[in-house]
């Protein structure tokens, strides 16, 4: 992988807008995020709209027969992925607060999230 030594560092943002479990996107985005850690890029994760549910505490999907991948969000820190942003309005609309979340995040207003997105080089959404 030449890129790991190419020296180019871009601002990547992975935008999570979908609920976990109903679709595979949350899980496979996480696989993307973990791979991106190997490329020494400036990685950002944004959770907005139903995406905030991806990092809800207490997920126990055994009863629906699917894998519980939510502990992986806690492992991100070990990959030096520490820029996690959550949209305040998205939490509020769903009756959630920061205390409901699995991992430490920075809570941004929708306006702040929009400005943060505007500064990115590569935005990946599913």
């Amino acid at each position, binding site marked *: 992988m030449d890129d790991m030594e190419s020296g180019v560092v871009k601002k990547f943002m992975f935008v999570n807008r979908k609920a976990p*479990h*109903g*679709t*595979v996107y949350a899980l496979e985005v996480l696989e993307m995020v973990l791979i991106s850690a190997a490329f020494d890029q400036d990685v950002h994760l944004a959770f907005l709209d139903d995406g905030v549910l991806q990092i809800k505490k207490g997920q126990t999907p055994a009863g*629906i*027969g*699917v*894998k519980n991948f939510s502990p992986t969000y806690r492992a991100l820190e070990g990959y030096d992925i520490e820029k996690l942003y959550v949209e305040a309005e998205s939490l509020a609309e769903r009756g959630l607060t920061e205390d409901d979340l699995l991992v430490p995040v920075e809570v941004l207003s929708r306006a702040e999230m929009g400005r943060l997105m505007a500064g990115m080089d590569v935005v990946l959404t599913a």
Partner: protein
Amino acid sequence: MKFAVLVNEGPYNHQAADSALQFCKAALDKGHEIFRVFFYYDGVNNATRLGEPPSDDRNVTRNWQKLAEDHKVDLVVCVAAGLRRGITESNLAQGFRISGLGQLIEAGIHADRLVTFGD
């Protein structure tokens, strides 16, 4: 009571197949009959025998096969939808059969209830 089940989406990408499986199991546990499970649209992708999900995740195709083995459930893949998407006899998992869309209409007529799972 006779239930028919329609699965509109492929495995993993959507929860539809997982939900349909759980519904079938619960219906059988309660003594109901599953007249047929019909796979249409991307649902045909449930029937590939080439899928190998990570070992710590469920294998949806295998779950269908087990349901078919344990309870003789008729798993029917739409021939036209399958051809379009590359599900043919050559990669069809055991326990599934390929047939026409008429099998779905027939299921709608013969079963007491038709329950659909999709995107």
